[in-house]
């Protein structure tokens, strides 16, 4: 809408300017002002407006707006000549009808060159504006894209830091400083370990399961300090499975969800059990937690799951996967399968 307003303004302004200049030229040359001279000026003004407007309509209909500059130059050149021929034809006919001037149509008429030049200049202005606008639109689109990317990255980082957990942990530590200073100290160390690992997570693609287990143990110790008797943890890691390599924070993310959607929602708390089994060439890790899984539940948890699945398939292709579902009436079971030889595709 705004574009077409600019167009009409430029159209009127441009042709007025042309008429003004040609009037001045006529005055300078000493030609006496007569009805036919003024009529002539108005005729050119009106014809210029109408024909260039039809020309614009044709440009839009023929899809020239999407064409690049090199295919436009010959087309515009040809169009200018054709328009000049048409313009001159109509001009001569109207002059005959209105002022009784004799019809003379010669291809060598000097006016023809003037008209062709006019239409060429008109096109120059028109396409310059179109290109400029297209460029600006592209630039805005790029900026918007970049802003969206930045926001996503920020959200990802924030989610990874899990602020709810951090501030609750801090609060627990504050209380422990009075009640059990030794425990307060060890909780600070555990929290440091968890924070460090989440800061470093982006640096490595895979880490040994044994290392991930250390972090998850620290994390669960903090949650145990917070939930006290409402959280019990059992580990059952099969020999030989610790060496398998997994994407960092994979187990951590799953266990965090077990707390958030399981334990934290149960007035009497519950249990988290983590066990691993070694099969032929794969390791299966089962994480069981008290609670019930609702596939249509909160969208952030299904997003987290989707993310974990993506990470698995990025690292292991079809051999790495995750399943989640209810295990009996009071437990949720998450199973992750990891190939032992990190057969990266």
């Amino acid at each position, binding site marked *: 809408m705004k574009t077409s307003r600019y167009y009409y303004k430029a159209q009127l302004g441009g042709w007025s300017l042309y008429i003004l200049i040609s009037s001045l030229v006529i005055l300078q040359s000493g030609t006496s002002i007569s009805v036919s001279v003024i009529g002539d000026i108005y005729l050119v003004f009106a014809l210029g407006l109408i024909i260039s407007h039809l020309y614009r309509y044709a440009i839009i209909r023929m899809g020239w707006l999407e064409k690049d500059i090199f295919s436009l130059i010959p087309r515009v050149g040809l169009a200018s000549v054709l328009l000049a021929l048409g313009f001159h034809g109509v001009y001569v006919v109207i002059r005959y009808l209105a002022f009784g001037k004799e019809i003379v149509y010669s291809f060598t008429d000097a006016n023809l060159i003037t008209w062709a030049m006019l239409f060429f200049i008109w096109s120059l202005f028109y396409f310059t504006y179109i290109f400029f606008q297209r460029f600006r639109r592209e630039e805005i689109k790029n900026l918007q894209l970049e802003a969206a990317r930045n926001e996503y990255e920020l959200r990802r980082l924030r989610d990874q830091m899990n602020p*709810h957990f951090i501030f609750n942990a801090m609060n627990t530590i504050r209380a422990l400083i009075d009640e059990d200073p030794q425990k307060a100290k060890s909780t600070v160390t555990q929290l440091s370990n968890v924070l460090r690992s989440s800061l470093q997570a982006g640096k490595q693609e895979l880490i040994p399961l044994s290392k991930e287990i250390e972090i998850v143990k620290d994390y669960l110790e903090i949650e145990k*300090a917070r939930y006290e008797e409402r959280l019990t943890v059992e580990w059952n890691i099969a020999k030989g499975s610790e060496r398998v390599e997994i994407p960092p924070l994979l187990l951590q993310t799953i266990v965090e969800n077990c707390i958030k959607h399981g334990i934290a929602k149960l007035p009497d708390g519950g249990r988290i059990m983590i066990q691993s089994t070694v099969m032929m060439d794969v390791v299966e890790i089962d994480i069981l937690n008290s609670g019930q899984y609702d596939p249509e539940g909160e969208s952030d948890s299904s997003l987290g799951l989707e993310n974990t699945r993506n990470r698995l398939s990025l690292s292991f292709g079809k051999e790495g996967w995750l399943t989640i579902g209810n295990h009996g009436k009071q437990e949720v079971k998450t199973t992750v399968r990891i190939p032992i030889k990190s057969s990266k595709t």
Partner: protein
Amino acid sequence: MIRAMIIDDERLARQELRTLVEKLETVQIVAESGKPEEALDLIDRENPDLIFLDIQMPGMTGFDMLNEIEGRAPEVIFVTAYDEYALKAFEVNALDYLMKPVEEARLSESVNKVAKRIEARQEHAEEGVENEGKLEINDQVFLKDGDKCWFVELEKIRLFESEGNYVRVYFDNSRPLILKSLNALTDRLSEKFFFRASRKHIVNLRWIEKVETWFNGGLLVILKDGTKVEVSRRQSVKLKEMMAL
């Protein structure tokens, strides 16, 4: 002395807050609880002036718990670790919250604010007979409609209107729909201030601007905001008697 109660599912969080609150000389902790259901009983029994309330608790959020309070709502200071979204749901009137770990200066600031509100309300309170535990005009109630919540003083409520199993509450520019019956409300509201106009309406007597006669010996009540409420024939007799006094 402000009689306060702490509700948080984590023992250490309760203890931490208790330590901080006990340093203030204006507040006395009369009870604490880690379970919303138990807390509701305690609120009923102890009738505290103020509760420190955690938002995220198992089984029931702090908001849901407030919604269950039958009597007058105490003053509430929310204590939360990181729940900006939950707090956004709240209409800002009288909302006070603290972030865990709690800063002593912020705590005493919040408590002072609450103390002033309680004082103002007591000064304002009507002299006279105790209304057998019914809600007085200066009491505040907690209302919840979907994700939105309000604390409202009863004097601001112009009208209760029944809509099926719900009641629409008119105050300021809000008109939330709450899951209550008009009969239950009638039992809880003090008759000195609220009048059951008909099967559909309870009006706040203080908001009545004019009373006009209506057909069949009924009456039409016009409230200060222009709302018109028809009074049933039976209740009209009652209203006339009250007005005659």
